[in-house]
């Protein structure tokens, strides 16, 4: 930097900015629009994701799950059981279904997880989840059948090999053929498909549609044996009563398992885990969409900043030539232009953040925007970097020219 102090260069940069108000304001405006649009767009997307999540939470909070501690008894042949825990039983389920003790519980269904491989002809598939349960499970877990029908209480009593399957398993086994009334083999047993459930989509890395649901009695007899069950699916009479229903579940389970304090409980009671997962799922989709929107607005903003920086610095090539002719070293010129670019980017970035935050206070197209810190930081940092790079690069190019070339620059 030679003999020119950094403070001096700051002063030069400030003069460079303030001596051309029009050019500087346009540059700041470019950065401002880039930054604020990223913040607002992301906030609007975030806001609608939040709205969706709230709606889902409103929809179905009456679903309760009871799980055994330490993996809830595992499932199928690979059953794991803690030595002290009693595990969940059909008797627990029956107790929960006692209306006298549990007025707020609509119904409870046992679930026995197993792992089986199903084959149809020479096609074989292992569903992500194989459950044995009661008919009330379909309502309690909000799993309506789309094609065909449900198996019946009679099937449960008779321990019949019947199944309702998810769309993924249906596709894996039957492709486009109708699975209804087809006989498949599961764990060596013949099972008739009676219905296909409506698609629920993917939850995290688990495909909710890669499932087979059979009468618990059949699963016990033919596949998993008569041990503890894995879970109990409970439905409260309505969303308002869910907390009361959970209290009742706890009371009944404590008396069933002879537990004095919750600290020693060998089971867990969970609410809306399914729903929360599906909402996480929905917001994941939205997040991807948002990220795309943010990326595009960042790109557009970045191109705007690039343009104005390129133009305004290139415009000053001649000025850079004069500076070189009177003895300015390249480093001093470069530092001055970088500081100018940085100041403009910061001014634009800060006002963009303020404008973005300001506008996000109002509801936009019926959506209440929710500003995320990461979008603010990303927008700010990216625009500052873009400003710095595209302010610095042409300045470096001009400062690397021979003075006469810079002076002759048209």
């Amino acid at each position: 930097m030679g003999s020119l102090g950094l403070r001096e260069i700051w002063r030069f940069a400030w003069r460079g900015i303030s001596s051309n108000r029009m050019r500087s304001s346009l540059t700041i405006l470019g950065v401002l629009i880039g930054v604020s649009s990223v913040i607002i767009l992301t906030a609007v997307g975030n806001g609608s994701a939040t709205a969706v999540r709230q709606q889902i939470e409103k929809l179905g909070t009456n679903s309760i799950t009871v799980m055994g501690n330490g993996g809830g008894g595992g499932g199928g042949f690979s059953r794991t059981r803690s030595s002290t825990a009693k595990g969940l039983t059909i008797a627990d389920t029956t107790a929960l279904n006692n209306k006298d003790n549990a007025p707020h519980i609509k119904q409870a269904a046992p679930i026995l997880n197993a792992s089986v491989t199903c084959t149809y002809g020479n096609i074989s598939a292992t569903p992500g989840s194989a459950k044995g349960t009661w008919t009330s499970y379909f309502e309690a877990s909000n799993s309506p059948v789309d094609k065909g029908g449900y198996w019946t209480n009679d099937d449960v009593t008779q321990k019949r090999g019947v199944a309702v399957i998810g769309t993924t398993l249906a596709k894996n086994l039957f492709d486009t053929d109708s699975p209804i009334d087809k006989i498949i083999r599961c764990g060596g047993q013949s099972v008739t498909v009676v219905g296909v459930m409506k698609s629920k989509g993917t939850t995290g890395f688990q495909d909710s549609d890669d499932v087979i649901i059979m009468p618990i009695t059949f699963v016990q007899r033919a596949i998993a044996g008569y041990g503890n069950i894995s879970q109990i699916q409970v439905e409260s009479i309505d969303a308002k009563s869910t907390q009361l229903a959970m209290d009742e579940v706890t009371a009944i389970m404590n008396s069933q398992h002879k537990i004095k304090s919750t600290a020693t409980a060998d089971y867990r009671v969970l609410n809306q885990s399914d729903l929360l997962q599906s909402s996480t799922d929905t917001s994941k989709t939205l997040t991807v969409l948002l990220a795309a929107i943010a990326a595009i607005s960042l790109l557009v903003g970045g191109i705007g900043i690039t343009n104005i920086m390129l133009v305004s610095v290139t415009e000053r090539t001649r000025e850079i030539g004069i500076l070189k002719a009177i003895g300015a070293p390249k480093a001093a010129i470069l530092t001055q232009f970088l500081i100018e670019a940085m100041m403009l980017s910061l001014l634009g970035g800060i006002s963009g953040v303020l404008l973005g935050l300001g506008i996000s206070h109002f509801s936009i197209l019926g959506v209440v925007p929710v500003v995320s810190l990461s979008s603010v930081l990303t927008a700010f940092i990216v625009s500052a970097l873009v400003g710095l790079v595209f302010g610095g690069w042409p300045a470096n190019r001009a400062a690397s020219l021979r003075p006469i070339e810079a002076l002759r620059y048209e």
Partner: protein
Amino acid sequence: MTTVVKVNNLSKTYGAGDTAVYALKKVNIEIEQGDFVAIMGASGSGKSTLMNILGCLDAPTEGNYWIRNLDVADLDEEQLAVVRSQLIGFVFQSFNLIPRTSALRNVELPMAYQGVSRAERRRRAAEALTAVGLADRMEHQPHELSGGQQQRVAIARALVTEPAMVLADEPTGALDTASTHEILELLHELNRKGTTVVVITHEEEVARAARRVIRLRDGEIIEDRTWAA
């Protein structure tokens, strides 16, 4: 007498092949400290090309150029900036002041790159502007000044660092007779104080006032005449 400038077989070619322009062809010049040299010649004869090389604004295609015994070809970018800053003051035909910047700031600027303190810079810039008769125009921006005034600011900027030589490329080319006289007078005064002055001109009057005249034609020196002091 010491030699400030020594040029040996200097050539400058623009472009290549069929379209090549030989702007300077094996030029040899030596300029003593304190000389006043006028460079003359028809348009396109290579005067500006020579001057830009002497001012280290451009590089020759071939040949050598020593300034104060420094071979310019050996200097890197940073050292060239030091040479421009310490040894050379350049005055352009088109003034080349920094736009939207006051006359005072324009004159201060070259001293900033020499590390002169702010107060000292201000003082010397004001002094230089007073010397060129612009004491009452210091805060004016270039676009608020006449051509003659702008050129006087440019001369103040060139002389304020007390360079070894001042190079002026048609400093009066864009000015009327009255302004021309003022500018020439300033250059002569500078020269009387010991600064080497090289000036490009088309005017015989300017040439007559010089101690030495170099005439160029098609990139070659056709006359190099020195008058006794």
